[in-house]
């Protein structure tokens, strides 16, 4: 029988989460890349258990290291996501990753206008080794991408905290850490932030969860 439903898009509204991680050579020290791989996997598996009739989580994964930045997973429904395994090597072409993120978010076919605002998650332990100022400025100040929520983790003393403080959309979204354990804690924070948005009546209102305590970690 005919009804108004027949004229509506039946799928839940997309909620994009775009993750960009550092896989440069320094991430190979002190178990950081191994912690990243475990944390990413846990994040994906935890989020799969969340349910929302209103929003459908889509994940994209980018990484920068070696000689380039690349897309490791195009925007994909969380149900079909398997987290990749990274190895650490080479330099830190973060600027190139900003360009790739910008390209994705400006694409209205991949992220239609009925989507909730994307969340960008950036993790790095060092300084960018390419031209990053203009790509970052365009990402955070211009066009659709300027409206995304931006969370970042600075690992260790070599990360450029000033740059990352400019990158994030609010100071509470910059997390500093020292070691592998902190990487996994950060991804618990990201999980909580994304889950809050999924469950909220107003997913596009900024929501800042508490950083998880160490004793809630399960490793």
């Amino acid at each position: 029988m005919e009804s108004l439903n027949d004229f509506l898009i039946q799928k839940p509204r997309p909620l994009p989460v775009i993750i960009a991680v550092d896989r440069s050579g320094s991430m190979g020290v002190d178990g950081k890349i191994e912690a990243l791989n475990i944390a990413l996997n846990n994040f994906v598996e935890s989020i799969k258990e969340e349910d929302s009739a209103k929003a459908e989580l889509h994940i994209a994964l980018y990484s920068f290291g070696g000689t380039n930045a690349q897309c490791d997973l195009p925007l994909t429904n969380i149900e079909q996501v398997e987290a990749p395994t990274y190895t650490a090597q080479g330099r830190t072409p973060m600027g190139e990753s900003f360009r790739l993120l910008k390209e994705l978010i400006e694409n209205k076919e991949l992220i239609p206008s009925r989507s909730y605002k994307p969340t960008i998650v950036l993790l790095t332990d060092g300084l960018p080794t390419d031209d990053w100022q203009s790509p970052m400025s365009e990402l955070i100040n211009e066009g659709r991408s300027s409206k995304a929520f931006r969370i970042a983790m600075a690992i260790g003393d070599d990360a450029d905290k000033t740059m990352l403080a400019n990158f994030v959309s609010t100071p509470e979204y910059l997390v500093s850490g020292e070691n592998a354990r902190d990487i996994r804690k950060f991804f618990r924070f990201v999980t909580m932030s994304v889950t809050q948005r999924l469950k909220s009546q107003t997913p596009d209102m900024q929501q800042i969860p508490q950083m998880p305590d160490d004793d809630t970690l399960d490793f």
Partner: protein
Amino acid sequence: MKANIEILKGKVRGTKNKGIPNQDYYQILETRSHLILTLADGLGSAKNSLTGAKYVCDTIIRMLKNRNYKLNDNDLSFDIISNWNKYISKNSDDISDFRTTSLFVFVDNNSNQIITGQLGDGLIAIKVDDNEIKNYSFAKDFLNETTCLGSGMNERYNINIYKYYNKFEILLTTDGISDDLEPEKIPLLFEYLKRKYKNLDKKKQNNELKRELKTSMSKFSDDKSLIFAWTNR
């Protein structure tokens, strides 16, 4: 009006915290010589947005029912906005508490002219005579964002003018409906609404529409409003 016009209208409150009313508002005026449809969606983040929505609908009807009003695009947009601003500023220090979108359609039977105006999101879709349907919706980047009255930014109505000879069909909705409508199905929606509702009496029409709005779109939490007017010859 000379033609026999059917007007279908309905609104339902979205799923939100208790105590927050439906912040959509509409007002319709039909006389022998003209038809004015107004629809406004008060912003959820603005505590007095329902008042803002009511006042812009009142303002538009008050201005347009004076048939001698000079309908120049810029003048009309400017006059609605400045009238609204003046009233709100007289009654409050913070105009942003009253933020609202605004849609309207004015049909003048004497000149056979239709004027549409849109400030903010939602949908106006219009068919005159046997021409194709024209849709206007605010080009969003993402959900939950819009220009609006009271923001101090990009406050200007998008005005369009049509001539009709014989008949018209007009659909207005707030974003609670337009965000999830398949654009290519709008012509079919027009046919569906006419087919389903033309033989119902007024009270049954509006009650049934309200029921449909509640049940069809329950998974999305926005307030939802729809006005559909068509000539029924």
